[in-house]
């Protein structure tokens, strides 16, 4: 169970968000560019620190301004896929995926085994020894996803995880992602601009507008709010 209350002053507005996600549940964040979606993920994973608020995950307090607690990012056990991938440019694909396991001092043979499996699952096995600067855009995004998933985190934060992935792989990866989250029984937050992601991945949908939760509910509920201009265009001309 993840529960978040976080306030942070941004350039144009104050972000003030309250969210909670149950284990095995996927919350999809949608909203305009610059609404604050990536910032919410950064606050949760510890890249940014809220000005105020409280974040708890599976009973652990990750941040609390009242108790003056701020668990450093590296101890939060959160898988975070960055919008711009942030692949380590001095490493190969396999080294990128192995990075987190090495930080956890997993024995080498086990790393090799786990990374090999992960790469195969994501159709990246051929690229294992390629330097990441020589990947196409979609290949990069898949590597970033593999790198986050391989750690079996207690929470997954995915920032537009399939935006650059080709359509065929998208369908497959969407399915795999959904299964993984269900099996792992961890909470998951996905940011997307893609209707299919929202409908197929999301147990709940949350619309962020200028740093606040503007609407929340099941995909059907939220996408049904046709009176909201953003949702109207998100859901597209035909009803979902």
């Amino acid at each position, binding site marked *: 169970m993840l529960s978040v209350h976080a306030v942070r002053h941004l350039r144009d507005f104050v972000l003030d968000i309250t969210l909670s996600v149950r284990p095995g549940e996927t919350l999809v964040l949608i909203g305009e560019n610059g609404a604050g979606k990536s910032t919410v993920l950064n606050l949760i994973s510890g890249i940014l620190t809220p000005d105020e608020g409280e974040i708890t995950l599976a009973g652990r307090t990750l941040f609390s301004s009242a108790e003056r607690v701020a668990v450093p990012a590296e101890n*939060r056990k959160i898988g975070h896929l960055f919008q711009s991938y942030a692949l380590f440019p*001095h490493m190969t694909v396999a080294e990128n995926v192995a990075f987190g396991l090495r930080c956890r001092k997993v024995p080498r043979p086990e790393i090799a085994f786990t990374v090999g499996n992960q790469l195969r699952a994501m159709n990246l096995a051929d690229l294992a020894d390629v330097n990441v600067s020589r990947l196409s855009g979609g290949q990069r995004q898949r590597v970033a996803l593999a790198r986050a998933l391989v750690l079996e985190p207690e929470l997954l934060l995915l920032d537009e995880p399939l935006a650059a992935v080709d359509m065929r792989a998208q369908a497959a990866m969407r399915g795999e992602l959904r299964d993984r989250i269900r099996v792992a029984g961890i909470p998951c937050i996905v940011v997307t601009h893609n209707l299919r992601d929202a409908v197929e991945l999301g147990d709940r949908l949350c619309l962020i507008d200028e740093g606040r939760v503007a609407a929340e509910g099941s995909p059907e509920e939220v996408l049904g709010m046709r009176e909201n201009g953003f949702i109207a265009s998100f859901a597209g001309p035909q009803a979902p």
Partner: protein
Amino acid sequence: MIGHGGWKWAGRAALTLIVAALLALFLLFVTLPVASLFLRISPEAFFRSLAESVVIDALTLSLATATVSTAVVVLFGTPLALVNARHDYLGREIIDTLTDLPIVLPPAVAGIALLMAFGRRGVVGQYFDAFGISIAFTTVAVILAQIFVASPFYIRQARASFEAVDRLYEDAARTLGASPATVALRITIPLAWSGLVSGAILSFARALGEFGATIMFAGNFQGRTQTMPLAIYTTMQGDLDAAISLAIILVVISFAVIAAVKVITRRSV
């Protein structure tokens, strides 16, 4: 911008040529004096010098001390540069400028300053002396003098290289479970690598060439504190040609060491 031998280029050839000529001129300016040294002596004289015990002692001492002092500079300078590149604390720019000061001190003054700090009567040295530890006139003094004059070159370049590393990678590494130390060792340092190597080379080269501070603080004693530059200067008092031989040896060895470092470190990245 990458050359395409033989392709038609719209009027850019002239500019390229002028730039190339100017660069060649500049290169000539830097290399010609060094080359002139080579013209001065015969190969036999050169190899004869190489076998002399003074030269062997001085060369060994020079390489050993410059290596140690570069290692110390890298060891202390890397975290210092990293902290200054990544943390904004009160007085950061003052500390940054302070670490540069040894460059502007004429080396002889640097030597006097070191004596006044770490000599027998020095601000700190007197306490060492009370414990029977004396630093001046020892090999340690040579190393300290080199650290003092060479450290700014590494620290300055290291800071610039660290600043050029995108924080995004560090953030990503932390979410993957890397502690700050791991982030530094596995992400920031490797990404800044070519700049760090470059800075270490500068610093090593400066340490190898160090003369004024060494002779003032460590004195000139064969086998103990007489590094190559001191041996060259000593020889110069009697025999200029022999001194030039020694200088050439220093140049050749330095060239070899620097080139080797470049090759080795390039490969490992």
